[in-house]
C-alpha cells in the first residue's frame, strides 16, 4: 500500500495541488473570490451541464452497444477472435486528431452514412456520442468480458432450470454477478467521456465544450490559470461525487463468485440467437470501429509505392530532428516502462484493496486512485512542470517523466479491471491454498494471480494502449528529439502539404499496427497453466 500511496502523492497529488494552488494564489493572498465568479458564469454552467449529460448518454450508449460485444468475446468462439479483440482496442491509442479524421469518414460529409442514407452527423452532438462509443467500446468489452469469461456458466443453467429464459437468466443471474465489472467499466467510460477532450474539440467544434476542453483552453490558450484552477476543482468535485456513488453501489454488490477457467467457457455459437448476436457484433465492430480505421490506412497508401512510409525514414522534412520512424522505438520504450509502472503500482493497490481487513482509509484510496482519469492532462502536465523542478525530483527533462505521466492514467485501469475479479475470488480458495502450506504471497501468486491473469493482461493491455496513445500530458513533456508516435503525428498534421499528411496517416497506421501487435503478443503471454508439478 505504501508504494501506491507514495506514487500518487508525488506524481499526482503534489503536481496537481501545485498548479491549482498557483492558479488560486494571488501574490501571497488567495483568490477565493474567483470561485464564486466562475461558478456564476452562465457559460461555465452550460459547459458543466453539457459535460454531464453527454457523458451520461455516451456511457449508456457505449454499454448498450458494447455489452453484446463483451458477451460475444467472452463466451463465443470464432476464428479471428483474438485479432479482433486487439483491433477494437486500437482506437484507444490513436491521437484524437486522427480519430476525428477517421470518424468524419464514417459520419461526416461523404462518409459511409452520408453515401448510404444521406445522414451527416458531423455537425451534431451525435458525432461526439458515437465517437465516444468508438473509443470506449474496448473498455467495456475488455473489463466486462474479462470477468464474464470466468463466470461459471452453470449459474445461468440453474436459472434456466427454474424457468428463466436465456435473457431472463442473463438479467437475473449473470448481470448481477457482472455488476461490479459493468459498474467499473461504466465508471471508466463515464470518466473518459466526462473528461473528453480531443473528440469534443474536434467533432464538437467551438460550440460544444466539456469542462476538460474549457480547462485546456483556459490553461493552454487563454492562460487564465485562476479560472482553470476553479474549473479543475469543479471537475474534481464532480468526479469525486461520481466515484463515491460508484463505490457505494458496487460495495453492496460484490460477492464471491464461482470462477472457472476462462478457456473452458467459450463455445462455438449455437442456435439462431447466438449466430445473430455474433453477426450483429461483427457488423457493429466493422462499421463502427474497423471502417474508420480502414480509412486511415487507405489514406496512408494514397501516395504510390508506399511513398508516405518511405518518407518516414528520412529526417529531411525538418519537422523532426530524427526520422519520424524512430518515434516507434521511443513510443514502445515509454509504453513498456509506463505499463510496467502501472501494473506494479495498480497491482499492489488492487491487492491491498481486496484484503478482507481493508479499512475505510484503504477503501477511500480506491476512489482516489481513479482521480487521474478525472483530471485534465494539461493540468497534470503543467503541474509536473512547476512541481517536479527541484532536486531530487528535477524530472522535467528526464525521459522517465513521460512514462510516469502515462502510468498515472494506466493505474486506474489496472485497478478497475483487476478489482472485480479479485473480489470475486472465493476466499475459501485462498484458504485451500493456505492449508496446503502456501504463504500469503504464495497464495496471491498461485491462486489470485492465475485467476486475475486475464484481467491483469487486459489491464496491462489498456495501460499499454493508454500510454502508447497518450497525448495531452506527453506533448507537454516529451522531448523534441524523442517524440512519441502521437506527438509525431500531431506535428506532421500541423503542417500543410500532401507528404506531411501522407506521413501522418502512415505513422497513424503504424501506430495502430504496433498497438494491435503488442496487444496480441501480450494476450499470448501465459503463465504456464498446467505444467507445474
Amino acid at each position, binding site marked *: 500500500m505504501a508504494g501506491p500511496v507514495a506514487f500518487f502523492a508525488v506524481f499526482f497529488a503534489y503536481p496537481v495541488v501545485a498548479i491549482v494552488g498557483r492558479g488560486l494564489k494571488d501574490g501571497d493572498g488567495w483568490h477565493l473570490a474567483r470561485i464564486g465568479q466562475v461558478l456564476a458564469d452562465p457559460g461555465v454552467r452550460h459547459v458543466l451541464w453539457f459535460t454531464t449529460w453527454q457523458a451520461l448518454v455516451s456511457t449508456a450508449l457505449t454499454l448498450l452497444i458494447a455489452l453484446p460485444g463483451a458477451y460475444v468475446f467472452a463466451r463465443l468462439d470464432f476464428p479471428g477472435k483474438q485479432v479482433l479483440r486487439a483491433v477494437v482496442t486500437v482506437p484507444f491509442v490513436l491521437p484524437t486528431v486522427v480519430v476525428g479524421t477517421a470518424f468524419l469518414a464514417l459520419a461526416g460529409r461523404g462518409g459511409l452514412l452520408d453515401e448510404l442514407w444521406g445522414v451527416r452527423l458531423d455537425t451534431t452532438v451525435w458525432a461526439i456520442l458515437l465517437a465516444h462509443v468508438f473509443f470506449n467500446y474496448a473498455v467495456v468489452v475488455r473489463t466486462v468480458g474479462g470477468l464474464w469469461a470466468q463466470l461459471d456458466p452453470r449459474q445461468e443453467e440453474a436459472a434456466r432450470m427454474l424457468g428463466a429464459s436465456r435473457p431472463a437468466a442473463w438479467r437475473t443471474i449473470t448481470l448481477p454477478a457482472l455488476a461490479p465489472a459493468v459498474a467499473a467499466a461504466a465508471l471508466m467510460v463515464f470518466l473518459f467521456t466526462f473528461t473528453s477532450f480531443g473528440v469534443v474539440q474536434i467533432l464538437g467544434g*467551438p460550440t460544444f465544450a466539456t469542462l476538460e476542453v474549457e480547462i485546456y483552453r483556459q490553461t493552454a490558450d487563454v492562460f487564465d490559470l485562476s479560472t482553470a484552477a476553479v474549473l479543475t476543482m469543479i471537475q474534481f468535485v464532480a468526479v469525486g461525487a461520481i466515484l463515491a456513488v460508484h463505490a457505494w453501489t458496487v460495495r453492496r454488490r460484490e460477492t464471491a463468485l464461482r470462477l472457472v477457467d476462462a478457456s473452458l467457457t467459450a463455445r462455438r455459437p449455437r442456435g439462431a440467437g447466438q449466430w445473430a448476436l455474433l453477426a450483429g457484433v461483427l457488423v457493429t465492430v466493422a462499421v463502427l470501429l474497423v471502417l474508420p480505421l480502414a480509412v486511415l490506412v487507405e489514406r496512408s497508401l494514397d501516395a504510390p509505392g508506399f511513398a508516405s512510409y518511405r518518407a518516414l525514414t528520412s529526417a529531411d522534412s525538418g519537422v523532426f530532428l530524427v526520422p519520424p520512424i524512430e518515434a516507434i522505438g521511443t513510443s514502445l520504450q515509454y509504453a513498456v516502462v509506463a505499463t510496467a509502472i502501472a501494473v506494479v503500482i495498480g497491482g499492489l493497490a488492487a491487492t491491498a484493496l481486496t484484503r478482507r481487513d481493508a479499512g475505510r482509509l484503504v477503501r477511500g484510496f480506491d476512489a482516489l486512485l481513479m482521480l487521474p482519469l478525472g483530471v485534465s492532462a494539461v493540468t497534470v502536465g503543467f503541474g509536473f512542470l512547476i512541481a517536479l523542478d527541484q532536486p531530487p525530483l528535477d524530472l522535467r527533462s528526464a525521459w522517465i517523466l513521460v512514462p510516469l505521466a502515462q502510468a498515472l492514467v494506466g493505474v486506474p485501469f489496472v485497478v478497475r479491471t483487476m478489482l472485480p475479479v479479485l473480489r470475486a475470488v472465493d476466499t475459501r480458495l485462498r484458504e485451500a491454498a493456505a492449508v496446503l502450506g502456501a504463504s500469503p504471497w504464495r497464495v496471491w501468486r498461485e491462486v489470485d494471480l492465475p485467476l486475475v491473469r486475464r484481467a491483469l493482461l487486459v489491464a496491462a493491455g489498456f495501460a499499454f494502449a493508454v500510454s502508447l496513445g497518450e497525448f495531452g500530458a506527453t506533448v*507537454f513533456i516529451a522531448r523534441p528529439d524523442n517524440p512519441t508516435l502521437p506527438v509525431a503525428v500531431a506535428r506532421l*498534421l500541423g503542417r500543410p502539404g500532401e507528404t506531411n*499528411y501522407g506521413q501522418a496517416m502512415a505513422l497513424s497506421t503504424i501506430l495502430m499496427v504496433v498497438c494491435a501487435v503488442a496487444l496480441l503478443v501480450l494476450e499470448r503471454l501465459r503463465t504456464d497453466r498446467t505444467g507445474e508439478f
Partner: protein
Amino acid sequence: SSGGGGESGDSRTVTLVSHDSWAASKEVIAAFEKESGYRVRVLKDGDAGQAVNKAILTKDNPQGDVLFGVDNTLLSRALDNGLFQPYEAKDADRVRPEYRADQDRHRVTPVDTGDICVNYDKEWFSEHKLTPPASFDDLIEPRYKNLLVTENAATSSPGLGFLLGTAARYGDGWPEYWKKLKANGVKVVDGWEQAYNEEFSGSAAGRKAKADRPLVVSYASSPPAEVIYADPRPDTAPTGIAPGTCFRQVEYAGLLNNARNPEGGKALLDFLIGKRFQDDMPLNMFVYPVRDDAKVPADFARFGPQAENPQTMDPDEIAGHRDEWVKSWTSLVLK
C-alpha cells in the same frame, strides 16, 4: 536515446525552447556549434501559445536559455510576466525597422515574420467560374456565402491573427464586419488542423476528406508548402492567397531570466538573426526572414510571395485589447 536530465546544467550546452514548428538545417546548426563551441539542445513545447505559457510557469527555474517563438499577438503576455532579460543581439540593426519591438529595453529580438491570410482553392474557383476573393470586404459578399472556414480566435493562433486583421482593418467596426461574416456563413472550427485538413477543399488532406470549403484562414506560406511537400511537385501551387486579407505576424526570441547559460543564450540569439540562419529559415519553417539582406529562396518566393500591404498592429495595442476582443468575438460569433 534516453539520456538523463543532467545536460542542461552543462555550460557548454545551450538550450533553445521553442514550439513544434521549429526547424533548421542540420548543417547550419552544426556550423554554429562549431564556431561557438556550444552544443545546441532544442526543446519543442507544443504550439506557440503553449510554449510561452510553459515558459511563464517555469520562469523561476526555466527549462532553457532562449525562448524562440513568441509572436506579436502574445508578446505582451511574455513581457508582462517578466520572461526575458535584456540583450541586444549583434546585428540587431540589420533587422528591418518595422519588425523591431521593445526598442528601449531590448528584451526580445525579432527572428522571422509570416502572414496569416485567407487561402483559396484554385481548382474550386475555376470550376465554379468565380473569382477568388481579394479582400476582407469581398468575404462578406453573397457570392462567397458558406465558403470560408476559420479558426477559433480564442484557441488558435491563425484564428486570432485573422481577428486582429479585421480589427486593424475596420477598427472599432470589426464586430459589424463579423456579424456580416457570420451571416455570410463563415464556419468556425477549433484548430488550424481541422480547418485546413478537414474543411478546406484545397489542401491535400481536404481533398481526401471531401472537404467543401474553398476558403480557409491559414498562412501565406501554405501554398508553397503544398508544392514543396508534394511528390511529385506540381508546377504551380493548388492554392493561392487573398492578398487583402493578410495579417502580419512577427516571431521573437529572447534570453530567459534565470537562464543557466546566459552567455550561450546570447550567442544563440546572435545566431538566430545571423545571415546564415536567416537564409536557411524560409524553407524550414515557411516564414520570411527579418534581416534586410537575407535571401529568400526562389521557389518559396514564387509560390508564396509576401503580402504587399498586410494589416499590422502594434504589440502594445494588441496587448491592450486582445482579451477583450476575443471575449466579444466569442460571444458574437460562437454563441
